[in-house]
């Protein structure tokens, strides 16, 4: 069961803000966020741990709501370099087995 991300795609003007959500049906103990630019590999942005603080990477921040099994990525004053596909990576255990699953992805395009 892949975590669902919303929206699937978003187009912004430079300087605008956006929020990307990641929802899981599993009890998570950590969430990672990655950005993948076209033709490149995903690159780690930040990690959120259960009971941890809200994290930041430049003007991008994220939160983790453990009760709702949701994480949100906040992009503030977006820059052209923010364009790409954003993935959440979620960690949980099933029957004692560790599982790491990526979300469905959100394509972000920032226009000048």
């Amino acid at each position, binding site marked *: 069961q*892949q975590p669902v991300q919303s929206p699937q795609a978003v187009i912004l003007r430079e300087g605008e803000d956006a929020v990307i959500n990641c929802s899981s049906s599993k009890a998570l*103990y*950590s969430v*990672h966020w*990655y950005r*993948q630019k076209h033709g*490149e*590999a*995903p*690159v*780690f942005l930040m*990690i959120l*741990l259960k009971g941890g603080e809200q994290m930041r990477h430049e003007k991008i921040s994220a939160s983790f709501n453990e009760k709702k099994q949701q994480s949100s990525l906040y992009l503030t004053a977006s820059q052209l370099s923010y364009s790409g*596909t954003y*993935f959440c*990576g979620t*960690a949980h255990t099933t029957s004692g087995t560790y599982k*790491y*699953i*990526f979300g*469905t*992805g959100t*394509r972000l395009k920032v226009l000048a």
Partner: protein
Amino acid sequence: DTAVSQTPKYLVTQMGNDKSIKCEQNLGHDTMYWYKQDSKKFLKIMFSYNNKELIINETVPNRFSPKSPDKAHLNLHINSLELGDSAVYFCASSDPAGGPETQYFGPGTRLLVL
């Protein structure tokens, strides 16, 4: 300098052929992975190895066989290639001892089966 490297970067081949993709990491990580990213950009884990031992083997056709000669290398061999195998294959590594398992990806191998 490259942390996770893969070869080849591009692979174009005919249906029915057998091919291999190689992966090496110099991060000293114990765990390595293979992911498949399809045309819809979904990233799906295929295999995970921890210190040369298979720990995750998702529902993947047995035409795909990973091999880990040592903890710095994880190769992927694919037999009898099919059209549906066309995708980008990413190798990744992580360090569980360093905390929750942030994935460090290689540049990807773009496989096209004709």
